[in-house]
C-alpha cells in the first residue's frame, strides 16, 4: 500500500507540473487563476496521500489549511485584481 500511495503522489505531482503550462499560457487572467485552483486541490490530494504513506497526521492539518486558503486567494482575485487585468496580452 505504501508503494501505491507514493506512486499516486508522484502521479499527482506530475499532474501539477502539467497544470503549470496553463498558468504560463493563459490567455486570460481567469485561466491562470483556474490553474492555481487546480494546483491547490491537487496539493490537498498529495498531502493526504503522503499523510497516509509517510508523513503522519500533521499533514492532514496542512491539507485542511490548503483547502481553506485556496478559496481566499480566488476570492481576492475575483473581487480585486480581475477588474484590472489586461486579458489576452500573453506576451511571454
Amino acid at each position, binding site marked *: *500500500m505504501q508503494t501505491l500511495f507514493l506512486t*499516486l503522489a508522484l502521479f499527482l505531482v506530475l*499532474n501539477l507540473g502539467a*497544470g503549470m503550462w496553463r498558468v504560463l499560457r493563459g490567455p*486570460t487572467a481567469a485561466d491562470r487563476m483556474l490553474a492555481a485552483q*487546480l494546483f491547490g486541490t491537487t496539493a490537498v490530494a498529495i498531502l493526504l496521500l503522503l499523510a497516509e504513506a509517510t508523513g503522519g497526521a500533521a499533514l492532514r492539518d496542512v491539507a485542511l489549511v490548503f*483547502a481553506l486558503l485556496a*478559496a481566499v486567494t*480566488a476570492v481576492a482575485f*475575483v473581487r480585486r485584481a480581475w477588474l484590472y487585468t489586461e486579458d489576452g496580452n500573453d506576451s511571454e
Partner: protein
Amino acid sequence: MTASDYLCAALLIIGGLFFMAGTFGLLRFPDVFTRLHALTKADNVGLGLTVAGLALQAESWAVAGKLLLIWLLVLLAGASVSHLIAQGALQRGMRPWKR
C-alpha cells in the same frame, strides 16, 4: 492485502484518473467555462474518491471525519469560486465557445 485494501486501491486509482482528466481538460478545452467544468471534476470526484479510499485506511473515526471535512470544504470552495469566476467571465463579455 485484505479486501478493504483492494477497494481502497481501486478507489484511489480511479480518483487519480479523474485528476488526470481534470488536468487534461484544463490544458485542452477551448475556453474558460469548459476549463472550469474540467477543474471541478478533479475537485469533486477525484478528491472525493481519494478521500473515500483513504478513509477506508484511516486509523480512527476522527481521522475519517477530518478527511470528509476536507473534501466538503474543497467542494464548497470549488463550487463557489467556479460560480464567481464564471459570472465574472460573462460580465466581461467572454462568450462560451461554440463549435
